[in-house]
């Protein structure tokens, strides 16, 4: 009789322990899910894309045909080896302006979040301009724009590494 009572008590204890184990497992699964939620994505390349768009609209001091050229106009003029009204080479003005813009907009180096940038302007066949600074890293974001004039296609590619 006593033995029977003892085994019944043991059975109940085992049942209670099983409930606790089951709930603990559910709790652990829930915790694992809540802790492993995917983090929100980094900013992406919207900044690089906007930079390219804005840079192409920048008005330079180089004047040809009674108007001040934008960077995009200068790319076309440089391809045609034209000169500004003040006899400056359009390619040189393009190079100098873009170098300055890049230095002001994307400071690179150990103390800055950006470690490297590279800007390439090319037509289908040749590279018109290539400006780069810093060392390559694994975390890079880039953007490119294509524009055309007189059936000739130009592309500008920009890449920044963090």
């Amino acid at each position, binding site marked *: 009789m006593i033995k029977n009572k003892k085994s019944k008590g043991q059975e*109940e204890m085992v049942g*209670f322990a099983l*409930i*606790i184990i089951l*709930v603990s497992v559910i*709790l652990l699964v*829930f*915790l694992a899910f*809540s802790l492993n*939620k995917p983090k*929100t994505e980094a*900013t992406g390349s*919207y*900044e690089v894309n*906007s*930079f390219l*768009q*804005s*840079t192409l*609209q*920048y*008005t330079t001091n180089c004047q040809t045909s*009674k*108007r*001040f050229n*934008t960077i995009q106009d200068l790319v076309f003029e440089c391809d045609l080896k034209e000169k500004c009204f003040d006899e400056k080479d359009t390619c040189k003005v393009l190079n100098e302006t873009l170098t*300055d*813009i890049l230095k*002001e*907009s994307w400071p690179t180096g150990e103390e800055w979040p950006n470690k490297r940038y590279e800007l390439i302007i090319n037509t289908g066949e040749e590279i018109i301009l290539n400006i780069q600074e810093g060392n390559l890293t694994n975390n890079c974001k880039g953007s490119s724009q294509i524009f055309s004039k007189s059936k000739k296609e130009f592309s500008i590619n920009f890449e920044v590494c963090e």
Partner: protein
Amino acid sequence: MVKNKAQMKIQQMAFMLIAVMIFFALVGLLILSVGFSGLKEKATALQEKNAILLVSKLANSPEFSCPEKTNCIDLDKIMALKNNINNYKTNKDKNFWGVSNIEIIKIYPGGKFIECNSESYPNCNTLKLISEKTTGITAENFVSLCRKEYDSENYLTYDKCELGKILVKYEKIQ
């Protein structure tokens, strides 16, 4: 004797049920506390996302945009907007864009800090459109800053575009 035993069994079961209920209640509380602990972070992340979205589309909104250009801010228009910014307040603390700060900074050509107002414009480099709070979540984006300029040599008006950044700040949830 049998009645006593049955009463004991009922009592045992009642205690067991109470224990199980308390246990589940505690587990429920734990789950709820874990669930709500990330709520503030989630709200902050959402605001950050909103700030990025707003900053990337603000330059193309009618109040800011230049005619026939994308990602461009018409500075002449913004100066007029700055003078009438009180019309864009929806109530005491809120404005049309729902942000605490909107600032436009000229990046290139650079220069020392000069805030834009009716006296200093266009020879300035920082335009504070809304400046309610100094702390918060900031999102920024590159924009083209264009204005009308008169070329006295050729007697013509042209669009002068420079490179800048637009900064939007949301108040952080405390």
